[in-house]
């Protein structure tokens, strides 16, 4: 598998570390309530198909959101977490 770092270009998978589903950057408000926080901390989908992950590009230090397919291992695109409005 090869992932495109938004700064460095297409790189080998061994330069990246998997950091979980990309919904980790959509943190609920502190007062969002127990259900929202339980969902955010513990509940994850297990899709067969398109998903969005967080990957860390170790050498340059960038956090990357990667669109990929869990069935075909195809990587559809990526963007820097720093460029995403939160």
């Amino acid at each position, binding site marked *: 598998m090869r992932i495109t770092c938004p700064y460095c270009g297409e790189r080998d998978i*061994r330069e990246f570390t998997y950091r979980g589903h990309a919904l980790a950057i959509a943190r609920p408000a502190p007062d969002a309530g127990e259900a929202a926080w339980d969902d955010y901390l513990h509940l994850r989908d297990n899709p067969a198909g398109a998903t969005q992950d967080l990957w860390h590009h170790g050498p340059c230090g960038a956090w990357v959101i990667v669109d990929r397919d869990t069935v075909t291992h195809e990587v559809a695109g990526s963007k820097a977490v720093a460029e995403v409005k939160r």
Partner: protein
Amino acid sequence: MVSLVPKSPCADLLPLAIAETTVSEVVPEAITLVAPFKGKKKTVSDALKAEVGVGFPAPGRMTGKQDARCIWVGPEQALVIGPAVSPDGAAVTDQSDGFAVIQITGPMAANALARLTPIDLRRDHFKPGHTARTLLNHMTCSITRLGAASFEILVFRSMAKTAVHELTEALKLLEGRAKLS
């Protein structure tokens, strides 16, 4: 009173010459990490140009020459190698003692690196002045192409011995293979 002797990271390890390829250490005057604050890249670039004559590099690029150069090392971060700098509008950290700076030059330089790093080092992909944060076998590093057969490798100082070992083994293997054919 104990008198401490300053030693460069590769003091006991380099230079080396294997297969007509040389591996040598460069000890710059200073290595400074410059990380511009949000929206200050232009100001910092101008300040660096005034101080040492090199601008802030785009991702994957190096600016300047041997005596003062600025190497991109990460999003909004670059290392100034040469005289110490202190531009306004950036987080500036002295890392002079933090890095081992190794240059590898010669006919086997690219082939030796190709055994250790996953990036494409071919001349039309990775030109002089291009730089990459990548891996040197298992350690993170920064590789910059200085010329057709000349590269500069930056690794953390604590990794100097491992980096030299990796380069030595790669060069020895290529030397042995050349003798067989």
